[in-house]
């Protein structure tokens, strides 16, 4: 099954995405954020909370005498002066001791003192990545679309039970939905948690609990079950750091989602997404972008070009952070109005378009939500059409739709029914897409060509205005966000000429080239 699309237009769209992203990349290069610095502290081994429950990475970074230098310089100075470990320095700060003035020690001494901790941090990330690679060889996954389900009880121990049951029922990826409040917290909660609304807090301990349970069931089933969480909100880099250490396999990570849908300041998000993606690149974590969000509120037909444009922009940002195509899970969703004649054809066109334009990307396909009504019987049927579209167009990451979408967070039985639906459809139609040809000049192909043409117009407009100005004007999802508005701006700062982020330094490789 192949659409005839104009490769010159596709190449032009990619160039435009580069034009859009480059000025933002310059801004990113000159700035850091509190969450970036806390991620650096975490990777140097700082963990735990003070007596009030405040995470030590927060205590340490909040105590910086001059944050423009970055936490590494000051931490290096403290290590050089006292011979303590980074953790001991953070504990001393929490006990009320001030951090040293970094101008007292030479920069070379600071770098030398921190060097072993940096190497240790990188070695931990690399060891985790190597361990995943080894498990994937020994416990191979079933072929894609990889069936992805969410657990969201609020209690990590109930989530664990649900995750293991889902894996047994055929799930290949389990995502733990976060509590609705977490995206706006400017810290990462600590320890195992048993209370949350609409989801479970992302904490390093919760990651560990879930990873251990999934490792156990992976061994039992003879196939590796992946774990997913959310590097979104105000703590993208810190979540990326903890996920790297606890062997999460995927992270939701979008370059604009926080800005548009959580009203997080755009400067903050752009800087945070870059460092978090650098960490994802090193740790072998596949990112999932959030284009589905464009469709959940607005009309899917109308917003189709915005989805494709966002995929190009996400790809360009991801390449600049060093992510190879194989780790860029660009998003889309099956949100076509079931009352629309030929809606299935339009969904097929969009999904196949993304497949052909991003051939090496592990595309993430999201299920219907907007038109799910509580009529579970019809909902199960719509999900089956979504499953068919996914297998026909060779999507990689397939978030199973729940018949009870719009009623409650999934019950254990809902998940089993959803997996059964997906497995049936994908088995019975496994090679359907290989066996049929799309009619030249027919409805599906014309729709794909229209979407591509409209995407070019949108990208040209955004390139001309500049991304930040375009977001201010509401070019994406009809949401307007001012450059200095939203949450988290106070945590953004311009780097001092002597600023040092040893991990960004180690992770900055050659930008990855775009797919032809």
């Amino acid at each position, binding site marked *: 099954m192949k659409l005839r699309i104009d490769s010159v237009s596709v190449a032009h769209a990619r160039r435009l995405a580069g034009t859009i992203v480059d000025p933002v990349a310059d801004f990113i290069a000159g700035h850091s954020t509190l969450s970036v610095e806390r991620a650096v502290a975490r990777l140097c081994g700082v963990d735990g909370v003070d007596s009030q429950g405040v995470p030590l990475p927060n205590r340490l970074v909040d105590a910086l005498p001059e944050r423009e230098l970055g936490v590494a310089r000051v931490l290096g100075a403290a290590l050089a002066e006292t011979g303590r470990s980074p953790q001991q320095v953070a504990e001393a700060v929490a006990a009320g001791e001030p951090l040293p003035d970094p101008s007292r020690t030479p920069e070379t001494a600071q770098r030398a003192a921190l060097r072993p901790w940096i190497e240790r941090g990188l070695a931990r990330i690399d060891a985790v990545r190597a361990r995943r690679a080894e498990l994937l060889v020994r416990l191979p996954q079933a072929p894609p679309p990889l069936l992805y389900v969410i657990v969201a009880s*609020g209690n990590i121990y109930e989530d664990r039970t649900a995750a*293991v*049951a*889902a894996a*047994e*029922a055929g799930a290949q990826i389990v995502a733990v939905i976060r*509590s*609705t*409040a977490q*995206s*706006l917290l400017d810290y990462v909660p600590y320890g195992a948690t048993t209370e949350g*609304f*609409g989801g479970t807090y992302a904490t390093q301990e919760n990651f560990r609990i879930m990873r251990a349970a999934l490792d156990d069931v992976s061994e039992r089933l003879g196939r590796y079950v992946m774990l997913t969480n959310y590097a979104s909100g105000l703590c993208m880099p810190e979540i990326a750091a903890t996920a790297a250490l606890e062997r999460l396999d995927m992270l939701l990570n979008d370059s604009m989602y926080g800005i548009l849908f*959580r*009203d997080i300041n755009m400067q903050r998000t752009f800087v945070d997404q870059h460092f978090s993606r650098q960490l994802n690149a090193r740790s072998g974590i596949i990112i999932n972008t959030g284009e589905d969000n464009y469709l*959940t*509120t*607005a009309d899917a037909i109308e917003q189709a070009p915005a989805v494709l444009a966002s995929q190009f922009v996400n790809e360009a940002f991801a390449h600049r952070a060093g992510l190879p195509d194989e780790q860029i899970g660009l998003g889309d969703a099956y949100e076509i109005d079931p009352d629309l004649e030929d809606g299935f054809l339009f969904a097929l066109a969009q999904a196949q378009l993304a497949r052909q334009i991003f051939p090496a990307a592990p595309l993430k396909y999201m299920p219907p939500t*907007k038109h799910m*009504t*509580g009529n579970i019987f019809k909902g199960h049927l719509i999900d089956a059409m979504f499953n068919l579209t996914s297998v026909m167009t060779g999507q990689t990451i397939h978030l199973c739709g729940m018949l009870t979408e*719009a*009623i*409650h*967070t999934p*019950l*254990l*039985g809902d998940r*089993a*029914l959803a997996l059964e639906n997906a497995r049936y459809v994908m088995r019975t139609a496994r090679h359907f897409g290989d066996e049929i040809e799309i009619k030249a000049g027919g409805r599906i192909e014309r729709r794909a060509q229209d979407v591509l043409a409209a995407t070019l117009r949108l990208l040209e407009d955004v390139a001309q205005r500049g991304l930040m100005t375009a977001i201010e004007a509401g070019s994406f999802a*009809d949401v307007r966000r001012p450059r200095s508005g939203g949450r988290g701006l106070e945590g953004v700062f311009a780097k001092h000429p002597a600023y040092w982020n040893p991990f960004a330094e180690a992770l900055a490789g050659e930008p990855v080239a775009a797919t032809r």
Partner: protein
Amino acid sequence: MIRPYGDTLDDGVVQLSFTLPIPWSEAADEAARQLVAQMGFTDVAVADGRPIASRFSFFVVYARTPVAIDVSTISVPAAGGEALTMDAVDALIAERIGRKLKVVGACIGTDAHTVGIDAILNMKGYQGHSGLERYHGFEVYNLGSQIAVDDLVRFAQEREVDAILASQVVTQKGSDIANFTALAERLEAAQLRGRILLLAGGPRVTNLLAAELGYDAGFGRGTLPSEVATFIARRIAERDAA
């Protein structure tokens, strides 16, 4: 008196499906059957029982209920008559109220799902029906997601709004009820309840639930902006006339 209708009047047939936290076996099917019988159903037939995980089984059950209900005893207050068009609402506000009505909407508590409140308030609206922002008769403040109840009350007080639209999508562990209740109580405590119209919205909200929580109206799944607009305009016009 009525009972559920399978294929014959008064047969009382219902379908149930549920999960039990036990490995599947024939004994599990029997456990499901007895469980449904103990709920008061008769003629229980386990149509399908099977494992869905090593420690969980899923069942589809048909059974009959002896319970019947007298529908004439049931009354559900509807949130005010038939909806007017946007132009008619604007005309009503202009003629009978004579000023713009200030409306504030928010997803309260930790809820981050603005899809409902956006459908009602945003210019673009829902299902081809414009949102309140497009009406001449309303001045709309959409505060968005995760708005603390206290902040919403303070905003309503400072801007002297005529109506508050509180939205809740997440219902886990009763968080929606807790938030709705907190808002009603804070408004009462701030002595604002008398002059501000209080509306609840969300996919699981019914007008009956809203009435029980002390709200003026509740709007559930599929509500059009014009229905909310009509309710606000009519209610305030009635109040002004009184």
